C-alpha cells in the first residue's frame, strides 16, 4: 500500500488508513467527549509524524518513557521509512519487547478496545498498522489482611482488586505447571477479565468444562463484582443458600484447588468464587487446618451448635413458652413467667421485635461510616438491653435468647451462609408461633429436603454427609490428624 495514499481513506470503517490525520480523526470521533483519552503528537527525524494515544491513569506512562519510546521507534525506522515491512516490525519488537508486550493491529475497532483496556497506541504517518504497547499498570491498593476473614494463625495476605495480583497470590502457593489459568472476558460494556483457575489432573474434566460453559454463557452489560457471576452461574437461584464459596483468602482458594475445586477470579473485586460449594465446606475455615487438630475439631463442633442455635433458638423459645410450657423445668418456667409478667406482648411479637431491632442494628453497623459506628453500638446496648427490659417491653430471658442467637450467627465462617440462616430464622419463628414444635419440625423437614435436593455443579449440597461418603467425614464432622487425612485421595492443602 502506498504511503500518504489519500484515496483509500475510509473513515468509520474497520480498516485503518495510511494517513495519520485520517486515522486521528477517526479515533477522535470515537473518543468524543472521553476526557481521559490523551493524544501526544510527535515528530521523528525523518519528518515522520506520529501520535501516541492512551488513557491517562491506566498505564505506566510518563514523559521519560514516551521520549525513550520515540527514540526507539525512530532508530528502528531509520533504515527504511517507506512502508511497514516485517523488518521494521521485527526491529521494533526487539527494541521494545524487552520492556513491554508489543503488537501490531490494522483493525480499528480492535485498537479502540485495546486502548480502552489501557494499552498505548502509536500511530505513525504512512502506516496502516498501529503499534500497541501493553503498559497496563492499574493503581491498586496494597495487599492487606482480608477484612471479612481474619485468622489468628495463618497468612495475612488477602486478594485485592487487580486480577493479575490475585493470580500471582495463587501462583505463589502453587509453583506447578498443573495450575492452569484460563482467561475469559464478560460484560458488554465493562469487558471484565475473568480467570478460571484449576489444577489439571486433580479437578475433574467434566467440572472444568461445565464451569467454562457457564462462564461463557454469561450475557450481561457489566460485571461490577463477582456476585454477578455467582448469580449467573449458580444452579438454583431461588434458594436462600449460597451455592458457591466466596473468599478473600488466597490460602483458602489454594486449599480448595487442591481438593479438585475450580476458582473463578473476577477483575476489580477481591472476592474469588470457588465452585462447587457445599454446605460443610462453607462451615470450614483455613485456620481449622493450621491449629492443632483437637482444638480445630472442638471449634468445628462449636460451629455446628452455632448453626443450629442461630436458626432455632428464638423459635424454640416461642414454641416452648406459647405451646409447650410443660417441657420447661418448673423453676425455670416460674422465673420466665415472672419476668414476662409485665410484658404486654405475646412471645412471638416480643421475639420478632427484638430480632428485627437486632438485625437493623447489625445492618446499620455495616453501612455507617466508622466514626459514627460507635454511636450505633451505644444505642444498641440501650435498645437491646437493660433499658428495654426495665421499660417492660421485653423480658430478660428473651434478651438472653436474642443475644445468644446473635453470638451464634457471628460464628459462621461464610458471611453468605450466615445471611441465609439469619433470613430463615424469621419463617421459623412464624412456624413456631402458629404450630409450635410441630411447625418447627415441618419447616425443618422442608428446609432439609430443599438442602438435600440442592446441587452445586453436579455435587450434592450436603455431601459428603448425604449421600454418604464415610471416608470423607473425618474432614467434615471433625478435623482428623494430617497423618490420617493424607490417606484419603483428596486432602486439603
Amino acid at each position, binding site marked *: 500500500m502506498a504511503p500518504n495514499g489519500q484515496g483509500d481513506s475510509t473513515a468509520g470503517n474497520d480498516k485503518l488508513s495510511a494517513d495519520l490525520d485520517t486515522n486521528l480523526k477517526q479515533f477522535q470521533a470515537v473518543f468524543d467527549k472521553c476526557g481521559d483519552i490523551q493524544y501526544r503528537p510527535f515528530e521523528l527525524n525523518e519528518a515522520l509524524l506520529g501520535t501516541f494515544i492512551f488513557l491517562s491513569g491506566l498505564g505506566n506512562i510518563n514523559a521519560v518513557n514516551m521520549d525513550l519510546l520515540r527514540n526507539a521507534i525512530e532508530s528502528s525506522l531509520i533504515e527504511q521509512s517507506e512502508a511497514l515491512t516485517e523488518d521494521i516490525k521485527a526491529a521494533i519488537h526487539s527494541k521494545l519487547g524487552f520492556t513491554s508486550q508489543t503488537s501490531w493491529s490494522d483493525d480499528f475497532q480492535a485498537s479502540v478496545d485495546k486502548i480502552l483496556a489501557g494499552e498505548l497506541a502509536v500511530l505513525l504517518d504512512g502506516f496502516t498498522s498501529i503499534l500497541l504497547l501493553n503498559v497496563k499498570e492499574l493503581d491498586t491498593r496494597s495487599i492487606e489482611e482480608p477484612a471479612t476473614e481474619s485468622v489468628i494463625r495463618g497468612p495475612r495476605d488477602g486478594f485485592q482488586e487487580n486480577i493479575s495480583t490475585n493470580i500471582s497470590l495463587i501462583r505463589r502457593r502453587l509453583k506447578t505447571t498443573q495450575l492452569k489459568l484460563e482467561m475469559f472476558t464478560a460484560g458488554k460494556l465493562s469487558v471484565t477479565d475473568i480467570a478460571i483457575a484449576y489444577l489439571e489432573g486433580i479437578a475433574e474434566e467434566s467440572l472444568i468444562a461445565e464451569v467454562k460453559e457457564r462462564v461463557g454463557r454469561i450475557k450481561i452489560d457489566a460485571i461490577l463484582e463477582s456476585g454477578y457471576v455467582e448469580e449467573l452461574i449458580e444452579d438454583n437461584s431461588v434458594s436462600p443458600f449460597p451455592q458457591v464459596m466466596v473468599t478473600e483468602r488466597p490460602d483458602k482458594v489454594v486449599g480448595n484447588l487442591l481438593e479438585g475445586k475450580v476458582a473463578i477470579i473476577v477483575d476489580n473485586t477481591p472476592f474469588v468464587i470457588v465452585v462447587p460449594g457445599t454446605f460443610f465446606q462453607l462451615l470450614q475455615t483455613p485456620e481449622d487446618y493450621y491449629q492443632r487438630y483437637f482444638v480445630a475439631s472442638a471449634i468445628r463442633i462449636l460451629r455446628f451448635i452455632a448453626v443450629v442455635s442461630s436458626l432455632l433458638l428464638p423459635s424454640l423459645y416461642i414454641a416452648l413458652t406459647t405451646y409447650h410450657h410443660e417441657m420447661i423445668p418448673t423453676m425455670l418456667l416460674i422465673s420466665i413467667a415472672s419476668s414476662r409478667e409485665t410484658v404486654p406482648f405475646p412471645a412471638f411479637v416480643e421475639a420478632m421485635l427484638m430480632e428485627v431491632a437486632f438485625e437493623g442494628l447489625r445492618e446499620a453497623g455495616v453501612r455507617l461510616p466508622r466514626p459514627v459506628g460507635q454511636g450505633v453500638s451505644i444505642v444498641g446496648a440501650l435498645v437491646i438491653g437493660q433499658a428495654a427490659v426495665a421499660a417492660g417491653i421485653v423480658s430478660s430471658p428473651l434478651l438472653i435468647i436474642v443475644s445468644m442467637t446473635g453470638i451464634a450467627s457471628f460464628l459462621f465462617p461464610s458471611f453468605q451462609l450466615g445471611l441465609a440462616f439469619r433470613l430463615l430464622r424469621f419463617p421459623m419463628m412464624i412456624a413456631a408461633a402458629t404450630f409450635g414444635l410441630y411447625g418447627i419440625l415441618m419447616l425443618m423437614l422442608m428446609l432439609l*429436603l430443599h438442602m438435600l435436593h440442592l446441587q452445586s455443579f453436579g455435587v*450434592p449440597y450436603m455431601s459428603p454427609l448425604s449421600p454418604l461418603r464415610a471416608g470423607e467425614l473425618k474432614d467434615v464432622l471433625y478435623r482428623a490428624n494430617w497423618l490420617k487425612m493424607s490417606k484419603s485421595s483428596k486432602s486439603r492443602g
Partner: protein
Amino acid sequence: MDTISRHQLLAVSIIYQIGTTIIFGFASGAGRDSWLAVLISTMLGLAIIMVYVSVTQLNPGLTYIECYPKQFGKWLGTPIAWLHPLLFLYIAGRIVADINNLVPSTILPGTPPWSILTIFMIVIGYSLFLGLKVMGRLAEIILPLLGIIYIAEVVLIISSGVVDLDNLFPLLDKGWNRVWKVVWPLGVIQSYGESLALAMVWTSVRPKGRVGRTMVLSTLLAGSFIAFTDAMAISVFGEEIFKRATYPMYALIQAINVADFITQLDATGVLYFCFMAFLKTFIYLYAAVRSIQKLTYAQSIRSFIIPVCVIAFVLGLTMAPNVIAHITVVEKIVPYSPIYLSLMIFIPMVLMAVSWLRRKAA
C-alpha cells in the same frame, strides 16, 4: 432417574419398619410376653419380605406391581395390580389419621386438625415432587440422629429410676396362646407385611443387587429395636398398664424424670412420631403414584402427586370419628380383612410360585 443407594435403602427401611410403633407400641396385647411376640413376628415377617424380594428378583427389571400383569396375564393381573395403589392410599390415609388423632390431642390442643394435616400434606407433596433420591438422603441423615436421641432417651429412662426388671417375669405364665394371637395376623402385617410398599422402591436401588440382604438387615434391626423398646416399656409400667395404654411408648417418654429438671418430654415423642409418620406416608404415597404411573403407562409421576395427596388428606380427616374407633379398627378389623391378608401374604406367595414355575419352564 430417581435412584437410591443401598445404604439409603437400609435407612429408609429401618425407619419405615419401626415407623409408628414408636408411639403405638407393638403387640401390646400379649402383655409381658409382647417382646417375644415381636421377635416371632419379625421372623415370620422376614419370610414374607423374602417372598416380596424373590418376586422382584424372579422378574428382573420390573417393579413389583408390573409382575402381576406379566405373570397372571392382562385380565387377571391388571385388576389385582390396581388393588395395590388403592391399598397404599388407604394405609397412607390411616397414617394421616394417626397424625389427626395424636397431634391435636397431645401437643396442639387448640389448633384445628385440618390445618395440622394441611401442613403435613404440603411437606409430603413437596417431598414427593423432589422424589425418592432426596428422601433417601434425608433418611440417611436422620437415622443416626434418631439413634443418638433414642440412646439418650434410654439413658434418661434408666436414670429416672423407673425400670423394674421384675415386671418382665414370669415369662409365658399365661401360655403361648396370647402370643400367637398378636403374632398372627396383626404382628406379621404390621411393619413387615406393610413392607410391600417398599417393594416399589427396590427397582430404584443403584448399584443394583443385594436388596435382599439389605432388607434382612433392616428387618432384624427394626425387629430387635421394637422388641427392646417393648421390653423396656413393660419393665417400667408392668403388664397391666402397658396392655391398656393407648400410646404405651408415648407414656414411656412421659415417665422420664431426671432430678425434676428433665421432665415432660412427651412433645419430643410426638415429634419422632410425626417424622416416622412422614416417612411412612411418603413411601406409601410414592408407591401409590409409582404404581399408578406404571399401570397407566404415564411418563412421569408428577401429575399424580397432588390428587394422591388430596385423597390421603381427605381420608385422614374423615376416617375415624375418634381415636378409640381408629385404634379398634387397626387392631380388630384391618388384620382380618381379606384384602390385607391376600394382598400382603397369599397372593404374593402365589405370584412367587407362578414366577418360579414359569422361569423353570422357560
